[in-house]
């Protein structure tokens, strides 16, 4: 699908659906859909932001892309080739090409592995830099590349490092096997404010240097703005809007994007608060737009059927019958 990118799509999902089965008492199971018929592409060399609240399915999407989770239906294409029907051998290659940085730096490094072990592990698994000596050099180079002093940290364990340092180690580890695609799942949300921009800057710099494509999962529109060329907004497993970052932030088309933007605290006091005291009802009308129960502009049509993602104006996509055009 086009969705306003440029060049070739590096990775693409088509009609992706993912469900989890939730136990509903004895023997009864119910499928809760986490991603519902989603199509999205990341273009080579871009950084694509996926923004949404908890429960929007953004992390599920990331987990499908790194094959931690199998979708129920749909396709995942990497450089035009199907990812879901890979042989073991193809999967090994894929695992080199697609890497991920996780949200919680305190949990995503094995507490029993030193920095050295952590960075070396992917090299060992993928038989990169065969002999010990060249592997050692490579580990040192990677650790230095993410702004850490190899001599000082390589024999340290994660608990001896700060959150920011750990996240740098995770990045070094992800980049060890020179991937094409790096997926970052809220990489700075657990860090102190003063550390965040440092990590984002590092990732942007590495992206430029190494020609990476980035998919950046976040709930923070400000961070997405700082980091992303394009933003896809998700709500309850559906894409609501996809557009270039500045366009999306300046002139949101989808009421949900607008709600997100209005919710960002601004100095000097509150703009009109979003409808108070309505915690989102997790179960909207089964057929209608998922956002309709909370949407101030919803009409009967919205509750009756769900709109598809369509091109509203040039390279701007929204899934809404009544986009905010004016």
């Amino acid at each position, binding site marked *: 699908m086009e969705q306003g990118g440029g060049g070739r799509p590096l990775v693409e999902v088509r009609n992706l659906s993912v469900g989890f089965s939730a136990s509903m*008492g004895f023997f*009864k199971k119910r499928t809760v859909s986490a991603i519902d018929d989603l199509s999205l592409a990341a273009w080579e060399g871009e950084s694509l932001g996926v923004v949404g609240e908890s429960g929007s399915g953004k992390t599920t999407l990331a987990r499908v892309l790194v094959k931690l989770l199998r979708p129920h239906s749909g396709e995942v294409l990497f450089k035009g080739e199907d990812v879901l029907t890979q042989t073991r051998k193809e999967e090994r290659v894929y695992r080199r090409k697609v890497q991920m940085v996780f949200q919680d730096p305190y949990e995503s490094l094995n507490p029993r592995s030193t920095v050295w072990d952590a960075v070396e592990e992917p090299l060992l698994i993928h038989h990169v830099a065969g002999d010990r000596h060249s592997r050692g050099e490579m580990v040192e180079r990677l650790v230095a590349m993410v702004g850490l002093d190899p001599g000082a940290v390589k024999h340290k364990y994660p608990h001896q490092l700060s959150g920011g340092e750990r996240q740098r180690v995770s990045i070094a580890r992800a980049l060890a096997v020179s991937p094409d695609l790096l997926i970052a799942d809220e990489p700075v949300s657990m860090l102190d404010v003063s550390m965040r921009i440092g990590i984002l800057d590092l990732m942007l710099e590495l992206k430029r240097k190494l020609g990476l494509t980035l998919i950046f999962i976040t709930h923070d529109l400000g961070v997405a703005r700082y980091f992303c060329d394009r933003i896809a907004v998700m709500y309850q497993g559906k894409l609501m809007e996809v557009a270039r970052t500045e366009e999306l932030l300046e002139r949101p088309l989808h009421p949900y994007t607008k709600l997100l933007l209005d919710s960002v605290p601004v100095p000097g006091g509150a703009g009109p608060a979003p409808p108070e005291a309505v915690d989102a009802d997790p179960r909207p009308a089964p057929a209608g737009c998922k956002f309709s129960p909370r949407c101030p502009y919803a009409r009967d049509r919205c509750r009756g059927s769900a709109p598809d993602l369509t091109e509203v104006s040039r390279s701007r996509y929204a899934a809404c019958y009544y986009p905010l055009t004016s």
Partner: protein
Amino acid sequence: MNRGYVLRRGFYAFITFLIVLVLNFAIPRVMPGSPVQYFANPRILPSLEAKLLTERFGLDKPIWTQFLLYLVGVFHWPPDLGVSYTFYPAPVWTVIMTYLPWTLLLVGTATVATAVIGIVIGILIGSKQGSKTDTVVTSASLFLWTMPFFWLGTILLWLFSIYFHVFPAGGAASPFLSKMPLLDQIGNIAEHAFLPGLTLTLAAFAGYSLMMRNTLVEELTQDYVTVAVAKGLSHRAVLFKHAARNAMLPMITLIGLNLGYVVSGALLVEVVFSYPGVGYLTYQAVLAHDYPLLQGLFFVLSMAVIIANFFADIIYSLVDPRVK
């Protein structure tokens, strides 16, 4: 109470029951030697009884037929678990049932006493974590916990019955029990059960108190405890109304799971005190190589534990609103 949860637990209990059923059937048949050899009473005419047994259990028939006959026997009322040779010709079931009440009395009181004492001591040391009391009581509990309980029983027996003559040295009641007034009857039974019960309690309370202590220490760091203190509740109220109440929940499951151990402990303690429960019976069965009786004992005791565990699960679902 959550119906789904109870049903699921009931289902698990049923599966456990089935496995016990199969185990009980399989053990004599997979062991070296023929089952007839085990089940026939060597004191009775072996050839005659062997013939009867072979007929009753179909021991010369295919394994499935044997299993079917076995099931028919078990689901019969009273269950047909074979004939004991120690008490020939009494059926195993009848023999066990005359001894079982004493064990239930012992295990029941010991379980309640262990839980109560364990939880109280757990709260005492858990709320004073790191203090001298904590260190001393914890160490003492650990030492009691690692003692062989039957040995502890022997020591208590020697001390209180032989040396000081405070308690009777054996049995479950005086021979003249039926001639006593009711109150004296109860007193007499309690007097006989006291030392074995004390032994079981001393040997087992530490498991609970140490678990309770650590659960409580963890609960005391939770946010809701901070809020309870901030609300102005006294130390006691915070401890008993909130922290201890939460810490007690895992105890229920633990008490259920531990029943198997308590029953095992009771068996040996009964031997020490010549207490006429199933433990004493087991001991006699072992000495006499009474295999049918041993099988029956294993079966009945397993059933009792499975049922008790199921009740522990139900109680848990009643007291914890979060049970799914």
